[in-house]
Each structure stands twice: as structure tokens, then as C-alpha cells.
């Protein structure tokens, strides 16, 4: 017995190494599963505030560009308001108010993110105190950015579109063909469009937008433009590359969008026994 203990004691460094290694790998696996978030992530209060300080400092030097962007976006929105404001007629009232109330949008800021891994994440400066929930969509005025994964009180962590684990339901705008956008881990400016059958005619330059089918993003948010179309290896689908419209290295202001009827949709799917991994 004593010799066994002695033996184990001599191996103590190795045993500790194996033990910690198992813990680390277990945390990686947990972090990468679609449901579970990591115990430790950058939405923790101290990490979040550190990242925010950094982003404030860096952001100061980009203020001019940011202002320009926001101003042009404001102009666009004002135009839309003018278009949408109803004439003084009762017949225009309440035609489809339920539809209009489906999505709520709030603004937020990206305070930290990774770009160079295959599983990239974002840190956002709003959390459950500001009404952020898991599963909300993230987009900027340039295009789709990602989806919220974990939420703490004042910060949250999102899965970036530059993450091989995220699929975004999309369509080609001109032909209304549905497909999934998935990043392949190679080039941070390009993603793949999956499951487009061969008979579809797609050509470089076509715009790709969200389809509104997965109930995270409303229909019609820009994702990118098709840059290359070629037949895939497996004969059934086309191999389509999409140049992403969002420049991830310059992300700052983003919008968080929530589908207020998501729980209703989910329970409906459950009743109809449709499993939907959005």
C-alpha cells in the first residue's frame, strides 16, 4: 500500500497535468456545444469592463468615421419615416400592426472580439439588465454580425458570423432561393452558402440577405454578395462563396434584434413536432 502511495506521489506532477488537461478539454467541449455556454467568458463583469475601457480608448480615434456612418444612416431612416408616416386617413390604420410589432430592435456596442480563430466570439456592452436575451440576432448597418450566446447582468457574449458553428438562414435576393450561410474558417471576409441545388442560377454579384425563416433575423438584412460560384464535389449542390458585407475588424455600433413571438413559434413547432435547430 505504502509503495503504491509512494509511486503515486512520485507521479504527482503527471497526475495533476492529466487532471487539469481533462478539465480544460471539458471546458472547450462545453463551450462549443450550441446550448451550453462557458462558465468563464468575457461577459463577466470585470472582463467586460476592461474590454469596454479598451474599446472606449480605441473608439475615440474612430469617432469621425463613426459619426459619418451614423449620420448617413440617420438620413436613410428619416427618408423611410417620411415614406411610412400614414396620411390622415383612417383606412391606413392598423392594417398589420401585429406583424410590425414582431421584432424589437435596440442598439449596442461591440467592446471586444476575436477574429483569428475558427470559433470567434464577440463581447457586447449590454446584458440582461438592458433586456438582452440569449438567441437574439446581432447586425450592424453593414450586415449580419452574429447571435447572442450567453448573457450576464451588463454584458453579453455573441457567436460571431465568423464561427464555424453558426448557420444563418439566408436567401438570394433576386431569385428568392433559400440557403444557409456558414463560415468555413478560412478567410474572414468570405463565407460559404450551403445547400443551394445545382439547377439554381446564381451568379457573382447577386445580393444575399436573411430569409426570415429562422425567426432570429427579420427578412431582408444584408449578409453579402456572391463572389464565386462553382459546382461542388458532391454533385448535388453548388459551391458558392459570399463576400460578407460587414467588416468585422471595424465593428463598433451594432443592433440587437429580438423576435417577440419566438416563444410562441417555438411552442407551435413543438406541438407540430418540427425540430428546428435555428
Amino acid at each position: 500500500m505504502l509503495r503504491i502511495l509512494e509511486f503515486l506521489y512520485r507521479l504527482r506532477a503527471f497526475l495533476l497535468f492529466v487532471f487539469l488537461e481533462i478539465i480544460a478539454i471539458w471546458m472547450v467541449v462545453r463551450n462549443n456545444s450550441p446550448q451550453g455556454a462557458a462558465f468563464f467568458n468575457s461577459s463577466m463583469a470585470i472582463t467586460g469592463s476592461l474590454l469596454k475601457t479598451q474599446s472606449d480608448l480605441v473608439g475615440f480615434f474612430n469617432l469621425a468615421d463613426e459619426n459619418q456612418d451614423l449620420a448617413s444612416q440617420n438620413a436613410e431612416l428619416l427618408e423611410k419615416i417620411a415614406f411610412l408616416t400614414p396620411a390622415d386617413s383612417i383606412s391606413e390604420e392598423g392594417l398589420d400592426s401585429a406583424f410590425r410589432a414582431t421584432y424589437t430592435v435596440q442598439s449596442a456596442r461591440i467592446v471586444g472580439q476575436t477574429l483569428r480563430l475558427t470559433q470567434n466570439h464577440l463581447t457586447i456592452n449590454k446584458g440582461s439588465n438592458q433586456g438582452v436575451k440569449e438567441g437574439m440576432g446581432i447586425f450592424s448597418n453593414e450586415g449580419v454580425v452574429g447571435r447572442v450566446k450567453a448573457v450576464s447582468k451588463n454584458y453579453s457574449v455573441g457567436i460571431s458570423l465568423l464561427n464555424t458553428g453558426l448557420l444563418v438562414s439566408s436567401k438570394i435576393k433576386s431569385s428568392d432561393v433559400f440557403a444557409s450561410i456558414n463560415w468555413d474558417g478560412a478567410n474572414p471576409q468570405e463565407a460559404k452558402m450551403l445547400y443551394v441545388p445545382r439547377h439554381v442560377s446564381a451568379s457573382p454579384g447577386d445580393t444575399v440577405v436573411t430569409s426570415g425563416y429562422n425567426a432570429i433575423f427579420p427578412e431582408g438584412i444584408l449578409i453579402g454578395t456572391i463572389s464565386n460560384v462553382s459546382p461542388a464535389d458532391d454533385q448535388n449542390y453548388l459551391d458558392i462563396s459570399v463576400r460578407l458585407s460587414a467588416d468585422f475588424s471595424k465593428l463598433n455600433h451594432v443592433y440587437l434584434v429580438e423576435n417577440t413571438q419566438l416563444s410562441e413559434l417555438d411552442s407551435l413547432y413543438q406541438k407540430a413536432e418540427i425540430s428546428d435547430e435555428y
Partner: protein
Amino acid sequence: MNIRKLFSYLAWGIVLLVLQVFFFKNLALFGVGLCFLYLILILHMPVNMPPISLILLSFGLGLVVDIFYDTGGIHAAGTTLIGFIRPLWLRAISPTGGYDEGTEPTLQEMGTGWYLTYILPMTFLFSLLFFTVDQWGTMGLFNILNKSFFSSILTALLAILVQALFFKRRRGIL
């Protein structure tokens, strides 16, 4: 280890961690070479540091970087491996006559040639594990080797640069 030494370790550690998580996080040379400069915190600990405390320190450091990278435990897995292998590798490449008591395996103490044989395999090992876990099943082996190769070279180069610029030379090498 006296108290002054401890404080200098702490300050150096904080500086390197801040650099790593705020500056090196999204830096990539030609899109393939990442820099893991904070590894020299582990690699420059005194030669006679007990293995247990070295492994624990490595794991803790990796975890801190993981939190900022949102990588779960990839860094921790890599640093723990480094912490475990380091004493074995040090013994394997010990110079004739062995190490002096309390030597730190740095550029100034050991010389450029020895330092390169010390740091390159260690950073390569770390990068290999890091990219294997990060790209699990999504990219090919060549991609992993490619990234590991350039990352370890970049890390080693920066480590040498930092020491050559900011630390006093003791033996007039380099």
C-alpha cells in the same frame, strides 16, 4: 525568492497579459501567424521551480487568457502542457555542468543559440495543441501545421526582441 523579485514578476506578468489580450488577440502575420507572447511568463520561471506549482501557474494563466479570448479552455490546455513538458525539456537540453541554482532560462542568461532550441519546440508544441483543438475537424492537417509553424516562429522572434530591447545584457551576447 525575495519580495522585490516577486513584485517584478507580478508587474511583468500583468504587462504581458495586457499586451496579449488587448493587442495580440487579433494580430495575425499574413493571416497565419498568431503571437502567444505571454508564454514566456511560464518559460522564464526559474529552472528549479517545483513542477506542481509551475503546472498550476500555467493552468491559471491559460484560464485568464481564455476568458478574454472566449475560447473555453484551449489556452489552458496548451499552457498546462507547456508547464508539464518544460522541466523534462530543460533536463534534456541542459548545458554541460547543469544549471546554476535559481537560473532563469532567458536570452541573457543562456545565449541565443540555446534559447532558440529551448523556446521554439515549446511554442510549437503549444501552437500545435492550440490550433488542433481550435480547428477540430474543420480544416486539414496542413493548415494546422502551417499556422503552428509560423506562430511559433513569430512568438520566438518577439520574445527575443522584447528581451533584447528591454533587459540589460549580462554577458554581451547577441
